C-alpha cells in the first residue's frame, strides 16, 4: 500500500518556512567574535530538518542545496572551521534562496536554480578551502543582502563595486493584475527611478495583455514595462523603489551589458514590432512616428531599433509601445523566478493556522457546556409547564452565555502573537542600516500581543514601510547624530499593546522628527493647503498622509516622509483602523496605528432606509443629527452640501445610491449620519437610526460578488440580511457621481 505524500506537502512547506525564519533570526544573532554554540546548533538543526523533509518528499533541488549548507554548518559547530562574517552573509543569502525555491515549489512551479547554483559554488569553494566571492553578480539576490555588512575575508572589492554600480540597469516590471487596487502606482515608482539618475530613463510599455474594451476591468493593471536606468545606480536603490510591491509583481534587475542573448533578441522583437505598430497606426500616429524618428529635440521619442535604445548624454526620455506579445515578456517570466522573494507566496499564506492546544481545549470545554445546556433545555421542553418558566429562563440565559463564550473561544483561535509580523524587522533593519551606513538599535516590545491573523497579514506591508521610512528618513546619519549630541546609534522601537478593544502598534524613532516648516511649505507649494493657511502642528503632521504629498520630490530631508504614506493610511483605513503621527523636531517621531482586534466582527450602527436595514461601522460615525433641509445648499447647482459648524460636508442619499424604491415621495423627517472615511466627512441621509450591535461580517464577494459601496453583509436576529456600508467606497461613489453625472438632489 503506498501513501500519497502530497497530502503532507503543505505541512512540510509551513514547517520549512518556519525553519527558515528561525535560521534567519539566529543568523542575525550570530557574531563571529563570540560564537554561541547553541545558536549554531539551532541553525544547523533547522537546515537539517529542511534537508530531511525535502528528501522525504522528493524535493531534490532543496535537499541537494541544503546539503552543502548543512555540511558547512556542521564543520563550524564541530569546531573544524572558524565562523567568519562571510559565512554569515552567505548563510543569509542561502536562506533567501531557499525561501524563493520553496515558494516556487509551493506554488506548483519549478524553482529557478540559477541563484542556487551560484551559492552552491560559493559554498563548495569554502568547503574546498578556497576563498569565495560573496557577490550578487546575477542580480538575483536580495539587494540589501548584497550590500550587507559583508566585508569578510576574500570578498573581491573590485567585483563588488562593479556589481553594485554597473553603467545601468534594465528592469522588467510585470505587476500583478490587482496592483492598482492596492494603491500602488507604477508612475510614482518610475518617477522615483528617474530621481536616482540624471540621465533620462527609458520606459517601454507592453500592452499585449490589454483585453478587448468590453472585457476590460478598468481597475486592473494589464500593462507591464521594461525600464532602462542609466548611470551608476546601486541595485539596492532600485529594489528600494519596488520594495513596496515586490510581492505584487514579477521583477527582474539586469545589469546593462549582462543581458542574455535572449534578452537582446527580445529587445529586437520589441523594436521590430514597435516599428510595425507605428506603421499601422493612423495618420496622427504616423505623423508622431515621423517626428520622433528625427528627434533628439522632441520630448518623447520612439525606439525604432535596438541601436537607438542606447542613450546619449542629451537623449530625452524615450517612450514606446509594444503591440504584441514578445519573446521579451516570456523571457521576463522565466528570469523572474530567479529573483529571491523574501516571503512565502500569498497562496501559501492563508492555507492553515497553528493553534495552541490550550485554545483547542478551551473550545472543547465550551462545546461541552453547550451540549449540557442544550440537553437541559431539551428535557425541559419535553414536559414543560408554567411552573418551570423560571428554569427555562435560566436555561436560555445559560445558552446565551455559552454562545458568547464559544464565540470568544473561536475568535481566539484566529489570534496570533504580533511577533509573526515583527519577525521580519531584525533582518530588514540590519540590511537597511548597513546599506545606509547608519547604526540602528531595534527594540521590539509587546511581541506576544495577539491580533487576528487576517489583520496581521494586512498590516505587514504598512509596518515595513513605516520602519523603512523611519530608518531612511527619520534617523539621522551618525555624523549628524553626534553633532546633535545624540548617541551614535539611532533607536527604532516597535511596540504593540491592547487598549480599549483595539490593538495599538507604535513605530517610534529617535531621529530628526518631522520638519513642520518644510512640510507646510511643500503643501502650500503643491496647492494642498491655501497659501495663507496657518495650521497647528497636528494638522501639519496630517499633511504627510495626503496623496498629493506623497508625490513630492525628494530634495529635502523631509520629503521622503510622505512617499507612500497615503498608501499606508489607506491600507490601515481598510482594516477599519487609524494612524496618527506624533513628532517633535530633533527628538523623533512616533506613528501610532490603532486596529480592531478582528475583522470578523464589527460594532455597527443599524439604520433604516426605505424598508431596508443597513449597517454603518460605528468607528466611522462622527455624529448623527436630524437633517434640516433648509441648511442644504447646492454647490454650482450640483452637489448638495450642508454647513456643519465650521465646515461644509457633501450630502449623499443612501436610497439613491442603492436605487431603493420609496413608498412616498420623499423622506419623512430624515436623519443625517455624518461619517468619516479617507479623512473626509460625508453626510449620509437615512430614514431612521435603529440600534447599535455587534455583527458578524459575511463576505459578499465569496457569497455573491463585489458591490461598490458595500463591504459585506450580516444576518440580523430576525433572519434578514443587512448590508454593511463601506465608507471609503461610498466616498468614491460620491466622487464618481459628482464627476460624472452631476446633481444629486438631497432630501
Amino acid at each position, binding site marked *: 500500500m503506498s501513501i500519497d505524500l502530497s497530502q503532507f506537502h503543505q505541512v512540510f512547506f509551513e514547517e520549512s518556512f518556519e525553519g527558515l525564519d528561525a535560521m534567519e533570526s539566529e543568523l542575525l544573532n550570530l557574531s563571529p567574535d563570540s560564537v554561541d554554540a547553541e545558536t549554531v546548533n539551532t541553525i544547523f538543526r533547522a537546515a537539517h530538518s529542511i534537508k530531511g523533509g525535502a528528501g522525504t518528499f522528493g524535493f531534490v533541488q532543496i535537499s541537494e542545496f541544503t546539503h552543502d549548507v548543512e555540511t558547512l554548518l556542521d564543520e563550524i559547530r564541530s569546531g573544524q572551521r572558524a565562523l567568519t562574517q562571510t559565512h554569515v552573509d552567505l548563510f543569509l543569502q542561502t536562506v533567501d534562496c531557499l525561501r524563493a525555491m520553496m515558494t516556487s515549489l509551493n506554488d506548483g512551479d519549478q524553482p529557478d536554480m540559477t541563484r542556487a547554483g551560484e551559492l552552491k559554488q560559493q559554498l563548495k569553494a569554502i568547503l574546498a578551502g578556497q576563498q569565495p566571492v560573496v557577490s550578487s553578480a546575477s542580480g538575483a539576490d536580495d539587494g540589501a543582502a548584497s550590500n550587507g555588512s559583508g566585508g569578510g575575508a576574500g570578498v573581491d572589492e573590485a567585483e563588488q563595486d562593479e556589481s553594485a554600480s554597473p553603467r545601468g540597469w534594465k528592469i522588467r516590471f510585470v505587476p500583478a493584475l490587482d496592483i492598482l487596487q492596492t494603491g500602488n502606482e507604477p508612475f510614482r515608482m518610475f518617477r522615483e527611478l528617474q530621481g536616482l539618475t540624471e540621465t533620462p530613463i527609458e520606459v517601454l510599455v507592453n500592452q499585449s495583455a490589454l483585453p478587448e474594451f468590453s472585457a476590460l476591468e478598468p481597475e486592473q*493593471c494589464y500593462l507591464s*514595462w521594461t525600464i532602462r536606468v542609466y548611470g551608476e545606480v546601486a541595485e539596492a536603490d532600485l529594489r528600494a523603489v519596488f520594495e513596496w510591491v515586490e510581492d505584487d509583481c514579477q521583477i527582474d534587475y539586469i545589469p546593462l551589458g549582462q543581458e542574455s542573448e535572449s534578452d537582446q533578441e527580445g529587445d529586437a522583437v520589441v523594436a521590430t514590432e514597435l516599428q510595425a505598430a*507605428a506603421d499601422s497606426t493612423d495618420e496622427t500616429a504616423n505623423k508622431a512616428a515621423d517626428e520622433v524618428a528625427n528627434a533628439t529635440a522632441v520630448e518623447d521619442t520612439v525606439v525604432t531599433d535596438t541601436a537607438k535604445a542606447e542613450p546619449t548624454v542629451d537623449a530625452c526620455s524615450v517612450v514606446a509601445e509594444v503591440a504584441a506579445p514578445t519573446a521579451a515578456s516570456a523571457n521576463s517570466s522565466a528570469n523572474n523566478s530567479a529573483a529571491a522573494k523574501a516571503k512565502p507566496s500569498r497562496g501559501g499564506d492563508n492555507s492553515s493556522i497553528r493553534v495552541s492546544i490550550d485554545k483547542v481545549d478551551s473550545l472543547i470545554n465550551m462545546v461541552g457546556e453547550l451540549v449540557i445546556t442544550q440537553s437541559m433545555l431539551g428535557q425541559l421542553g419535553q414536559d414543560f409547564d408554567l411552573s418551570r418558566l423560571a428554569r427555562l429562563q435560566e436555561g436560555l440565559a445559560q445558552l446565551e452565555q455559552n454562545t458568547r463564550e464559544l464565540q470568544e473561544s473561536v475568535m481566539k483561535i484566529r489570534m496570533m502573537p504580533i511577533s509573526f509580523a515583527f519577525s521580519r524587522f531584525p533582518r530588514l533593519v540590519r540590511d537597511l542600516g548597513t546599506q545606509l551606513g547608519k547604526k540602528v538599535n531595534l527594540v521590539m516590545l509587546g511581541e506576544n500581543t495577539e491580533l487576528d491573523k487576517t489583520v496581521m497579514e494586512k498590516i505587514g506591508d504598512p509596518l515595513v514601510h513605516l520602519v523603512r521610512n523611519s530608518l531612511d528618513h527619520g534617523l539621522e546619519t551618525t555624523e549628524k547624530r553626534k553633532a546633535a549630541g545624540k548617541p551614535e546609534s539611532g533607536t527604532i522601537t516597535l511596540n504593540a499593546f491592547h487598549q480599549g478593544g483595539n490593538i495599538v502598534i507604535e513605530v517610534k524613532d529617535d531621529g530628526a522628527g518631522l520638519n513642520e516648516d518644510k512640510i507646510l511649505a511643500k503643501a502650500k507649494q503643491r496647492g494642498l493647503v491655501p497659501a495663507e493657511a496657518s495650521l497647528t502642528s497636528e494638522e501639519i503632521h496630517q499633511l504627510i498622509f495626503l496623496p498629493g504629498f506623497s508625490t513630492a520630490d525628494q530634495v529635502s530631508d523631509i520629503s521622503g516622509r510622505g512617499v507612500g504614506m497615503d498608501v499606508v493610511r489607506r491600507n490601515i483605513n481598510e482594516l477599519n483602523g487609524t494612524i496618527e503621527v506624533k513628532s517633535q523636531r530633533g527628538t523623533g517621531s512616533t506613528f501610532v496605528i490603532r486596529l480592531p482586534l478582528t475583522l470578523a466582527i464589527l460594532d455597527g450602527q443599524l439604520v433604516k432606509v426605505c424598508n431596508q436595514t443597513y449597517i454603518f461601522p460605528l468607528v466611522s460615525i462622527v455624529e448623527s443629527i436630524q437633517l434640516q433641509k433648509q441648511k442644504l445648499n447646492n454647490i454650482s447647482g450640483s452637489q448638495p452640501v450642508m454647513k456643519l459648524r465650521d465646515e461644509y460636508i457633501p450630502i449623499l442619499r443612501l436610497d439613491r445610491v442603492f436605487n431603493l424604491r420609496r413608498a412616498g415621495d420623499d423622506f419623512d423627517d430624515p436623519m443625517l449620519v455624518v461619517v468619516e472615511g479617507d479623512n473626509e466627512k460625508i453626510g449620509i441621509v437615512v430614514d431612521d437610526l435603529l440600534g447599535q450591535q455587534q455583527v458578524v461580517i459575511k463576505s459578499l464577494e465569496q457569497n455573491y460578488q463585489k458591490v461598490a459601496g458595500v463591504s459585506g453583509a450580516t444576518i440580523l436576529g430576525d433572519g434578514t440580511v443587512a448590508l454593511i456600508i463601506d465608507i471609503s467606497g461610498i466616498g468614491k461613489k460620491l466622487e464618481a457621481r459628482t464627476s460624472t453625472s452631476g446633481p444629486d438632489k438631497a432630501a
Partner: protein
Amino acid sequence: MGVTVSQSVRIDCGTRLSIECVEALHQEMEQAVRDAQDIFLKADDVQYCDTAGLQLLLALVQTVQAAGLQISWQGVSDVVRDTSKLLGLTSALLLATD
C-alpha cells in the same frame, strides 16, 4: 459626460482621471464606442491621473482605431502628458504631436 456632436462623441475626462473614476468612465466610453463615428477626448481639465485612467484611454484608443474610427484630443492637461510620459504611453495615446 458624453456630448453628441453630429456623428461624433466628445468624452470629457473631468478633473480626475484615476482609478476611482474609471469604472464610470469605462461605461460611458463603451456607450460612446457603440454609438459613435468619431471620438473626441477632452482632457484639459484633468488635474490628477494615474495608471488606471491612462490604461483606460489606451484601451479606448486601440478599440476605436481597430474599428477604423477616428479618435482625437480636444485639449490635454500637462498632468496627462507628464504621467503618460512617465508610463511610456505618449506615443500609444497619440499625444506626441498633440
